[in-house]
Structure formats: structure tokens, C-alpha cells
């Protein structure tokens, strides 16, 4: 599904190398988690894959299926099936959540040569999906993320994911700023979307989220590289001992 090879990335404006040869392969239907200390390059990886400006790829490749991700615009990556759930979802005053969602869904459909969703059909689908995430009609009408609590913003991300039906979902610290109940609700939303044809890359600081979203593989990232990979037990090891042991082990 997602294949990253020897990915090297620096900041566009300064000589600071952030990713120093990342190799990662996520199979169809799998859930991979990336953990690592602050500044290890986790969020950068998610931004570079989804096409945010400000980074320069100096070496390496990233493919989603047959699609060369690094060569195309962010909206083309989205249409190809990539989705990034933001750590800090952006507030957009004056643009209704529904308008935004429908514009996005139909833009992707159009890009893939599919028929656009009618207003009535869209409304039916979005209401059903919103209900399972406990998003009420008021939240759907309000401007995108404006006045939403931290939990509401993250649930809104998952709703977008549910509507856009991507193949590859990257969750960038989706657990940050969430209380226990909100994390459970968001995790249930994610788990409901797990399927054979959909993969997840879950970036987190804490093992706690992985209790709810059970990963197949856990990677530890440090200093711009993946330094260790293993099963879910690796996350527990980090939770108990911190990163020091693993860092010492690989150096």
C-alpha cells in the first residue's frame, strides 16, 4: 500500500536535515504505529507524504500503490487515497462544515472520474456517519472547526476520513488534547473504518492510544530514522522504560 524508501528531507529555508533515510512499508489493511521522542521527525514524515510546503526531499521515494506521491500536488495525493488527520485541525471561519465536506468529496470524485454526489445523497450519508461519531447537526452547520472543542475537532477529522474513504490514513497525534472518553470515541471511529483495503499509520507519543487502535507493527523513530520495528509489545516497552534503552541499544 504505502512504500517509503530511503527518504531524506530537509527544511526548504535552512540547512537542517530532518529525515535521514526513512524506510517503511505498510501493507494493505495493516495498522502501523510510529512512536518516538520529540523532534524525531514523525510529524515531518506525515507532512512530506501529504505534500505540505516548506520541505525539500533530497533523496528517496514514496509510493501509494503505483502512485509516486512526491511528484504531485496535495489534492492529487488526496484523490489517490491519502488522508492526513491533523494534529491541530485548522479553523476556517465563514465556510460551513457541510459545504467544506461536500466540496472535498466531490473534488476527489471528479479527480477520479467518478460521478459527483448529489446534495440529497450527500446529506443522507453525512448525517448517518456523523451520528456514529456523536456529531450533531449544529456542528455540521457551523463553520469548519470554529468554536469546536479539542475533542470535537478530532471527531470532525474522523468524519472527514469516513466521508472521503481513503486507502491510506495517517493519524498525526490524534490523541493529543483528548480526554479518556474522547479518545475512546475517536478510536471507535477509526476502528469502524478498518478494512482489508485500508491501511493506517498512527503517529503517537503514548501507548495509550494503541490500547484502543491495535497496531500490527510498531516502529520507533529517532533522529530522522526508524531505528527499531516490532510487534505491539514494543509500544509497551517504550511506555515502561522510555526511549533511553532502545536508543542505547541501537547506537
Amino acid at each position, binding site marked *: 500500500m504505502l512504500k517509503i524508501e530511503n527518504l531524506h528531507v530537509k527544511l526548504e529555508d535552512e540547512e537542517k536535515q530532518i529525515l535521514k533515510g526513512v524506510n517503511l512499508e505498510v501493507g494493505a489493511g495493516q495498522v502501523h504505529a510510529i512512536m518516538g521522542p520529540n523532534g524525531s521527525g514523525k510529524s515531518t514524515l506525515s507532512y512530506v507524504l501529504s505534500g505540505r510546503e516548506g520541505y525539500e526531499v533530497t533523496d528517496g521515494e514514496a509510493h501509494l500503490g503505483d502512485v509516486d506521491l512526491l511528484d504531485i500536488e496535495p489534492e492529487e495525493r*488526496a484523490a489517490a487515497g491519502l488522508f492526513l488527520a491533523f494534529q491541530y485541525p*485548522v479553523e476556517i471561519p465563514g*465556510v460551513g462544515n457541510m459545504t467544506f465536506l461536500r466540496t472535498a468529496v466531490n473534488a476527489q470524485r471528479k479527480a477520479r472520474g467518478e460521478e459527483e454526489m448529489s446534495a440529497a445523497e450527500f446529506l443522507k450519508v453525512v448525517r448517518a456517519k456523523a451520528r456514529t461519531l456523536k456529531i450533531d447537526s449544529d456542528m455540521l452547520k457551523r*463553520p469548519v472547526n470554529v468554536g469546536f472543542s479539542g475533542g470535537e475537532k478530532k471527531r470532525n477529522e474522523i468524519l472527514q476520513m469516513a466521508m472521503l474513504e481513503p486507502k491510506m490514513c495517517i493519524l498525526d497525534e490524534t490523541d493529543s488534547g483528548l480526554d479518556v472518553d474522547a479518545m475512546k470515541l475517536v478510536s471507535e471511529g477509526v476502528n469502524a473504518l478498518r478494512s482489508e483495503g485500508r491501511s493506517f499509520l498512527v503517529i503517537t507519543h503514548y501507548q495509550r492510544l494503541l490500547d484502543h487502535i491495535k497496531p500490527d507493527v510498531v516502529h520507533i523513530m529517532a533522529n530522522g530514522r526508524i531505528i527499531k520495528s516490532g510487534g505491539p509489545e514494543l509500544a509497551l516497552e517504550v511506555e515502561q522504560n522510555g526511549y533511553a534503552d532502545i536508543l542505547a541499544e541501537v547506537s
Partner: protein
Amino acid sequence: MSAVAETMNVTDERLAGLTLPAGGWSDAARKDALSRVQMMGLPSRRDEYWKFTRPDTLTQAFAVPAALFHNDEAALFDDVERLKIVFVDGVFDADASDDLSLEGVNIERLASADTDIHWARDIYGVLETNGQKPVERPLAALNTAFATDGVLIHVTGAASKPINMIYLHNSETSDVMLHNVIKLDAGASLTVLETGPAAARLNMVTEVEVADTAALHHIRAQGRDHECRAATHIFARLGTESVFKSFTLTANGVMTRNECVLELTGDDAKATVGGACVGDGDFHHDDTVFITHDAENCESRQVFKKVLRNGATGVFQGKILVKAGAQKTDGYQISQSLLLDGDSQFLAKPELEIYADDVICSHGSTSGAIDETALFYLQSRGISKPVATDLLTLSFLAEAVDEIEDETLREQINQRMASWLERRRG
């Protein structure tokens, strides 16, 4: 040549080409206005009040020709139930207009000089004269003297539908002065819609008397003709617990100066002046607002948003004057520009002058580019960059458009702006 001599020269040249219309009941006001124009002289670029906007094409003897703008879009507010009053290049078009009768409203035309319209005599040129202090507005006095037509609206109750003045521009050289007077009796209410550019060069004055507990909602869309020029003035006086809300949408126009002069004279009055403008290329747009608080517990809001690109210029001069005794005043002023490229500019001069000690007044002015993070957020959901940019542009304008209270009218403005942006994308 000295500055004074130059000003008088321009004024003389302008006046030489004009004749006072036979105004009947308005004759005295017209003659008085003419002598005031002669005293003040028309504005020159040396005037502080015209520091950011060159007045020469607005004051010179002849209008610069403006090519006609052809478009196939439906007229704005076409599907709104309203009373239409149509002017073509400043000339009343009886065939295209509705019958000028509406329950609770008395509608006359300024050009009907033979009827003595007593109520209008107390307002015509009177509010304009009041508005000449402390800052002179000679183009408004010029209008009072020479306006050839306009609509006089006296509202005695709650008007059942909006009145829409439709100003069409069909002559490349039309040079037009229109003067409207709107009087709302106590408790009366009316929505006035104004659409269209009116002429190659327009000088427009609207005087509004809002009596106690009356409410006027005013929504204006100045048309899309690229080469038109306009200087407009609104003078409004607000009574106790009255409401005045005015919103102006401007898209295109090589030179537009919109002045709004409000006086809150009764306690608990509320006034809002809002504007959204979208300018491209050879575009100069100036909003100049002067709000005087002269009563207690009044609220005023100024909300102006300008989207500028390809070298367009936006200007905002906004002043709140709180007189001694105008306690519990709540004054809010925001002017913001979204600069879509490095060639465009926004010039702002916010001013507060306060002589009461128990007031809240705030003002803010910003210039910024499209928020890159928001743009990326939209793109990451599959929305292309041009569409995302348009969505963020509408988002930026929303705070001003939201000042329109009526949801249907607000949506019409929003949809119109969205379709303009979409057309521009091609």
C-alpha cells in the same frame, strides 16, 4: 499655481459645465449648496482627507468614458419580492420600474419639482450640511446643488417588501448625479436595495432620517463595470432605539469613494456599516466613514474587508467621535485586507476621538496573505489550490457579509461572490 488657486480653478471648470436644475421646493437648498461648494472648493490631492485617493477624475469637468460591461448573469435580487425603481444612466425608466406605490410608504421622485414635498424639504441638503463638519465633503454639496433626480422615500409603517433602486449603465460617457432622501417615521422599517453602477461617473448622495425605534436596512451592490467611477455619500441621523444597517459590495470599478457619515443622536441607537470589496488590477476603492456618538448607550460597528490582487488598491479611513456625555458608547471598527499578491496595497487610517469617560471603543486593521496552513488543510482534503483559495477568500469576506441581517439577502450576496470567483478561475 498655489494650492488654493488650483482648487478654485478645478471648481470653476466643473461648475462652468453645470446648470442648476429648476428644483421648485428644493431651490433654496440647491442655491445654498452651490454657494458652499464655491466657498469650499472641490477636493484636491493636497487635502488630508484625500491623501490616499486622487480626486481628480471625480472633480474634473468631464467624466472619463467607461466601456460598457456586458455580462449574462441574472440581475442581483432577481428572485426577491421587491419594488423596482430603475434609472438608466441617471434617467428614470418608468416602463422598467414598478408602480411607485407601497403600503406604509410614500415614494416620490426628486425630479417631480412641481410637487412641494414638505417632509423632504426638512432633510434635503440638511443632513448633508450637518455632515460637512468637522470635515468638508464638497462633492456631496455639489450633488445637493446639481442632482437631477433620485428617490424620496417616506416610510410611515413597516414596509411589506424591499425597495430596489436599479442603476443601469448604458452610455460610455454618462456623468450622473442622483440624490435620494429616506425618512422613517417612529417605529417604521424598510429595506433598501441598490444595485448597479449607474453611470460612467456617478456622484450619489443619500440622506437618511431614522426616527425613534425605526429601522433601515440598506444593501448595495455597486456593479462590476471595470472602468466606472463613483463618489457616494450616505448621511444618516439616528433617533432613540433606532437601527441603521448598511452593507456595500464592490467588485471592480477603477475608482470608488464611498463615504458614510452617521450621527447617533438618540440613546440606545445601533448603527452598522459594512463593506466587502473584491478588486483586481486597475482598481481603487476607498471607504471613508465618520460616526459621531452624541447620545448614551449607543452601539456602532464598522466592518470592512477588501480582497486585492494584481496591483489593486484599497483604502479605509474610519473615525469614531464620541462626544462628551455619550456615555456607555460601544464602538467597534475593523478593517482588513487580503492581499493575493505583492503588488496590491491597503492603506488604512483608523481614528478614535473620545470625550466621554465610560465607553468601550476598539479598532483594528490588518493586511495579510492567504493562510498557508488553511490552504494546505483544504488541499489535503482533495480541494484544488484555486478552489481552496476561493473558499478562503469567501471565508475572509464572511465577517463583513454576516452583518447583513436578512438570511436570504445575505445568501444572495454570498452566492454572487462565489460565482464571480468561480468564473474568474475559468
